[in-house]
Structures are given as C-alpha cells and as structure tokens.
C-alpha cells in the first residue's frame, strides 16, 4: 500500500478546512451557549453578593466548561456517519479513513482547547470590565498557564478519546451511553479487582472483610503494593488510555458500513 493511500498532507489540509468551515456555524452557536452559561454563573454573585470572588474561582469553572463542552463536541464529532444521508457523503469524500479520523481528533483536541481558553479568557475580561464599571471591585483574572488548569487540559486530552470512540460506536445519545458504559465497565472491573485481592490475600480476609490486625501488621507491604498499583495505573492512563481509544476509533471507522 502506498503512503498516499494512508496520508497526504495536501489532502489532509483540505479535509481539515472542510470539517472546520462546514461546522463553524455550529461552533459559533455552541460558543454562544457557553458564553450565556458563563454569564449566568458569574454575573449574579457580582451584583448580589458583597465581597470579592475567590482567585480559585476559575480553577473550578474553566475545567467544568472544558470537560462538558469537549465531551459533547467529541461525542458528536462523528454524528454524520449515523445520519442516513450524510454518511454517504462522508465516506465517499476522497480522503483516507486515517485522515478523516485524525481531522476529527485534531478539531476536538488541539483545535478545541485553545479555542476554549481564548473564549474563556475573553469572557473573564468582559466580566472584569462589568464588575469594575458596576460594582467597583475586581474580578480575578484567568491564568491559562496555571498548573491546575494545564493538568485539566491534559486530562481532557486523554479522556476525550473515549467520547470520540463513543460517538463512533453509539448511534443515538452517544454522550450518555458513553458515560453509562464507563460506569458499567468501572463497576465490573472494581468487582473483579476486589475478587482478585480477595483470592490472592485470602489470609487477610474474614468473609468479605479485612482483618484489621493483619492489616496493621502488614501495613508497609500494603503501602508498597498501593504505590506500585498507583504508578501502573498512572502510566496506563497517561500513555495507553488515549492511543487505545484512537486505535479502536480508527478500526471502527474503517469497518463502518452505510
């Protein structure tokens, strides 16, 4: 297979432009909705409560908007493949499955994140202006380079891959179904993990309960195990989670029929 069958930079730029320009009206409407929500949350405290807003205010609100908006966007990125008329147009467009996948991925990650930061920044500047004019007190500035904000962005970039796959896999209500699936899988894995621990450390259990004196005696080894497990999960999350769902999404897109 030739490389151009898989990826061609000129074609990819065309596709990216196509995806962006076809959807910019939807994006503007979404940005408007986010702005309205932002003002509903931020303006009443300015006018009705006396005292300044906490500097940590943005550490809660921006990640919330980033995750909610991003997951909605990622879940609906492939909505056209579930549409009986749009799907033909999508699959017949002369671009590779890889390019179509990466285009959506880029728009929902490195396209969405800077756009959301810029939008949020502009909203905070507006709010600051309103606060200064009408109440005379200052509204905390948004610092997108704050460590916690950057960590939220990084977590979003990893977790959105699951919603992108959910959007491909589920025809209707992909966001809710992805969330439910995630809860169901986590629940099943938790039970499985508990049963494994129960079998491997059977001497530390009485029925389904830990025997406390054993626990205290072996606290050091349990701590060690806990740290190791945490490290393993950390690496799995940061390195494997997103690529796993990207590969699944690519394969799913390739085998989707119309």
């Amino acid at each position, binding site marked *: 297979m*030739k490389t*151009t*069958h898989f990826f*061609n930079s000129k*074609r990819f730029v*065309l596709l990216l*432009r*196509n995806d962006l*320009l*076809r959807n910019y*009206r939807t994006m503007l409407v979404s940005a408007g909705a986010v702005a309205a929500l932002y003002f509903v949350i931020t303006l009443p405290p300015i006018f009705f409560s006396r005292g300044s807003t906490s500097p940590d205010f943005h550490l809660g609100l921006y990640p919330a908007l980033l995750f909610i908006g991003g997951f909605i966007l990622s879940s609906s990125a492939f909505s056209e493949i579930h*549409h*009986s*008329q*749009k*799907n*033909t*147009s999508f*699959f*017949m*467009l*002369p*671009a*590779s*499955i890889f*390019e179509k996948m990466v285009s959506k991925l880029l728009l929902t990650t490195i396209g969405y994140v800077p756009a959301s930061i810029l939008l949020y920044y502009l909203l905070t500047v507006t709010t600051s202006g309103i606060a200064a004019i009408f109440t005379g007190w200052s509204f905390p500035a948004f610092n997108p380079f704050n460590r916690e904000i950057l960590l939220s962005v990084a977590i979003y970039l990893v977790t959105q891959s699951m919603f992108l796959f959910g959007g491909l896999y589920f025809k209707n209500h992909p966001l809710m179904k992805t969330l439910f699936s995630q809860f169901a899988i986590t629940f099943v894995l938790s039970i499985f993990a508990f049963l494994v621990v129960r079998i491997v450390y059977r001497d530390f259990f009485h029925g389904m309960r830990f025997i406390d004196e054993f626990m205290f005696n072996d606290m050091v080894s349990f701590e060690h195990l806990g740290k190791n497990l945490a490290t393993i999960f950390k690496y799995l999350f940061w390195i494997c989670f997103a690529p796993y769902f990207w590969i699944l999404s690519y394969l799913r897109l*390739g*085998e989707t*029929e*119309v």
Partner: protein
Amino acid sequence: MIKMTDLTFAYKNKPPLFSELNLQISDGNIYGLLGKNGAGKTTLLKIICGLLFPQKGTCSVLAFAPSGRIPEMLQEIYFIPEEIYTPPLKISEYLKLYAPFYPRFDHQSFGQYIKTFDLPRNDRLTSLSYGQKKKFLVAFGLATNCRLLILDEPTNGLDIPSKSQFRKLLAASLSEDRIIIISTHQVRDIGNLIDPIIILDGGNVIFNQSIDDISRKLAVRLQKTEPGKDDVLYSEKTLGGYVVIDENRGESESNLDIELLFNAVINNQQRMGELFTREA
C-alpha cells in the same frame, strides 16, 4: 472496469441478498440497472462504492478493492444516492470545499451545467428544491470528470425540461474510459440513454445485454388476439389488442420499449435466458 466474482452479501440477521453473484461492467458505457423493489440495486451500487462490504467473493472497481476506501479510488467515483444530502453552503462555497478533492474537476464545465440546469448560484443549497439539489449534484458529479459515475434514481424530482437536459448532458459526458451506472424505475426517462441493460432479480443478474443484441434477438409486434402462453416470449394487453415480444426471426432490428423488456425478462426468465445464451 468493474468485476464481481462469486460475490455474497447479506444484511445482518437476514438471508443472503446476493449469493455468488458474477458481474462485469466495461468502460465506455452507460449501464441501466433495473430490478423490482428489494432486488438489491442500491445495495449493489453501495458495494461498488465501498459503502457496504461483501461477506464472500471479490469485487474490483477500476482495479481497486472498494472496501479499502482508498482516496485514489474515491476521487474516481462519484455516487449520487436516491436520498441526497447537501450541506448548508452556497454553490461557490461548496465548490471551494469539495472540488479540490477531485484532481480533474472542470470548473468551466460545471459553470455550463449550472447554467443549463438554471440553478441559482447565490442561494444556499439547503434552500433549493429536491429537484434543484439533484441537478446540482449531477452537475458537480459530471464536472469531477471521475471515471465512474453512479446515479441512483437520478430523474426523481426532475421536471420535464430538466429530464431532457439531464439526458443530453449525460450522453455528452460519456467517454471511452468512463462508466456511468444508472439505477432507476423510471425507465422511460432514460430509455434512449442506457446501453447495456442489467436486470437484477432474486439476488442474481438475470439479464445483461446490449441494446444492439436485444434489438437483434427480440421482435415486438401488435396483434389483436391473445397469443398462447408458449407461443411467444411475453405479451401484455394494450389498447386495441396485445403487444407481443417474440424471438426475432427476421433480419430487421426492432426498437424495444424497456418497460416491456423488463416485464418480459422478469416473467419469462428461463426462455429469455436460453435465447440470449443460445445465440451468444
């Protein structure tokens, strides 16, 4: 060229629609794909486009495997389905976004087609009528200069002058290395356009003949009395008697109504099959 060999296809939890289907489609022709409702015409077109994957057998389209959905293949195929979608863009915006994907797109020809079809250039595609949208997509498809143009019920929604313009444009756009496949129930709209004719029934290609062969091998006549069932290939009641299709035993070629031919093939598959294989 399109070649299908022993192709088997079934929708999920349903019996096979095609079982070991064989079909060859050659360059330089406008094929008419006919069949009853549910015969599998649209499914066959989707398999050719790589929108559906066969479970068994091979399908080669312009020397590509369509299930690979390779861009080099997709830029040589333009498919206009029966249920069409146009994004909320103006014609000029659509051109900017979609034409660059087709390396041989001819903007000048597109302009002429738009003019011929009398389409408004500055309106949004979503504001156009169904027929206008279809004409726009036909114009775009022709201007791509792709090697395979597939049209599913293209004349649905077209007004009378547009049908005539459609036939003229399509006939003029055919070249030696191009294949046009038209699937339709409106055979009268494309009567003088299609050649050869493929008829699908029960998941099989039961007829695949050129107009020339059909005219040489079949004769049509009008008679006042009802013919015996075994005396002719097919007959149906008409004003003033019966129109009869029979084996052409004379030298002269006859012009055959495609609707009549379709009914004859569907109702007398065995004898029609024998006639065309015997004399092939």
